[in-house]
């Protein structure tokens, strides 16, 4: 018998994992994915309520415009951030609990199958479902109320630099921007997944506290580094390099961001693997 990886066993486990996730975070994905509709309802309700003359507007219909694309992008980023830090520990935090964790650990699938399925679900399947649901409900809001402007789904793939392009048409989400948004969400998911497996209680708060501690250490380290670095010399070198690569600076910057996120994902992946290996009940 192959104790490392069997495609049949992996398929069975992956489907089992999806069913478990449906029970653990199904409602959460649904509620957060439908956030544009929920927020739209609240926005219009309170917008009309506090702009006066509410009763007559009940009869004549709302007169204020729906939330603009810029506002919806802001909400999208915020909801994505909250979702990415909350769902991993909800989805897999049970592994550190004695009862549910014991039964999970003793389920006849290999560690690599459980690990791959976990990463696949946490980094691809669940975010994909969330984004799909979010974009569809945002599109529905925009379709229902034309005053909202373009939906997030259109994204205006104009290959501009940066997350947003504040052009003549207002802020639009660009292709690069969406990738960067996804990789930052994936980075959060990986970090909070590791936190959810490391901490038995207070998983999200514990992870935030640990990140705070790590950032403090990094700041101390950076301060020591700054003390010993000739900034003028380094600045000149960077400027020279930037001038020499002016045409491809976006490529390099995106590459740098992807490298940083890749390193974080790899570090979290290694941490998750060893945590799964060493967990005891």
């Amino acid at each position, binding site marked *: 018998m192959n*104790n490392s990886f069997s495609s049949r*066993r992996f398929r069975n486990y992956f489907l089992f994992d999806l069913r478990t996730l449906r*029970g653990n975070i199904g409602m959460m994905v649904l509620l957060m994915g439908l956030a544009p509709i929920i927020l739209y309802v609240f926005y219009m309700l309170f917008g009309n309520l506090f702009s006066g003359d509410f009763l007559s507007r009940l009869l004549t219909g709302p007169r204020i415009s729906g939330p603009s694309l810029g506002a919806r992008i802001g909400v999208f980023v915020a909801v994505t951030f909250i979702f990415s830090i909350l769902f991993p520990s909800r989805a897999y935090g049970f592994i550190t609990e004695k009862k549910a964790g014991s039964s999970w*650990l*003793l389920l*006849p*699938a*290999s560690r690599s199958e459980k690990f791959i399925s976990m990463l696949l679900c946490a980094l691809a399947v669940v975010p994909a479902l969330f984004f799909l649901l979010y974009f569809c409900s945002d599109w529905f809001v925009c379709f229902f109320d034309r005053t909202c402007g373009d939906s997030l789904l259109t994204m205006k793939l104009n290959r501009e630099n940066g997350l947003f392009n504040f052009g003549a048409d207002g802020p639009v989400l660009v292709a690069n921007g969406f990738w960067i948004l996804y990789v930052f969400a994936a980075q959060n998911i990986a970090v909070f997944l590791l936190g959810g497996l490391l901490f038995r209680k207070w998983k999200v708060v514990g992870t935030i506290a640990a990140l705070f501690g790590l950032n403090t250490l990094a700041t101390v380290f950076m301060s020591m580094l700054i003390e010993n670095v000739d900034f003028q010399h380094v600045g000149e070198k960077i400027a020279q390099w930037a001038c020499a690569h002016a045409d491809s600076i976006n490529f390099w910057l995106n590459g740098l961001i992807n490298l940083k996120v890749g390193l974080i994902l790899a570090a979290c992946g290694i941490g998750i693997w060893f945590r799964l290996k060493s967990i005891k009940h």
Partner: protein
Amino acid sequence: MITIDNLAFNYGSIPVLKNITTRLEEGRIYGLLGENGVGKTTLLTLLCGLKKPLVGSIATDGEDPYRRLPSLLQKQYYLPDEVVAFPLSAEQWARGNGIFWPNYSQEKFLTILKEFETDPEQKMSRMSAGQLKKTYVSFALATGCKYLFMDEPTNGLDIPSKAQFRSAIMKHTAEDSTIVISTHQVRDLENIIDPIIILDRQDVLLNTSLEEISKRLFFDYGTTLHPNALYTEQLPGGFIQVYPNTTEAESKVHVEALFNAAHAHKELIKSMFNVK
């Protein structure tokens, strides 16, 4: 076969198990007995691979259970004292989990559950503790595992269910299965467990078959007090007394009296049964 060699385990600085060496043979239903806190559950969790031995080793068919390899996990099932109530019907839950055990039979699960008079369509989260236990016991037996580790399986079961449990264990386990049942409710299980393992503080007091026990100890259910009794307890209409069997007379082992006799005369019992 499970081989435990020089096993030791601590919780922090508190030793729980020390220098345990024993073998668990195939085709037996072991009764794991001991006072509260002697490490019965710890031993079970070590046997199934949920914990790592501090010292020594465990080998189940030559494999280390702590490595949690699918080849061994498919052959074993651990039923803890406290189980999770999933928001699924028993039938759905069993079908979803059963696919991981190659010998699992959904039909067998439903049959055992029916014997326990439990509705497979009922949601587990709405079941009573006893019904939930019966669902898990049914699943454990339906997995067709060679090694079954059960921690207090009769806790929460009503009187008819305890009889049904004994019957299900005898009926639905294979001839070569090794079943280890940790329990305080010895009377619930004394007709099915053989051999008996008695754990003392950090040590094994006894790991012997009922036949061997009755060869060396006599269980007297009479009305006359014996001067050499290792343990005496008054019962309605007489006594139960345990004393060395010098005449090779046959008697039915009274597990509770055996347990109390072993605790009152640890060294004597160990030397009598050649426990190292």
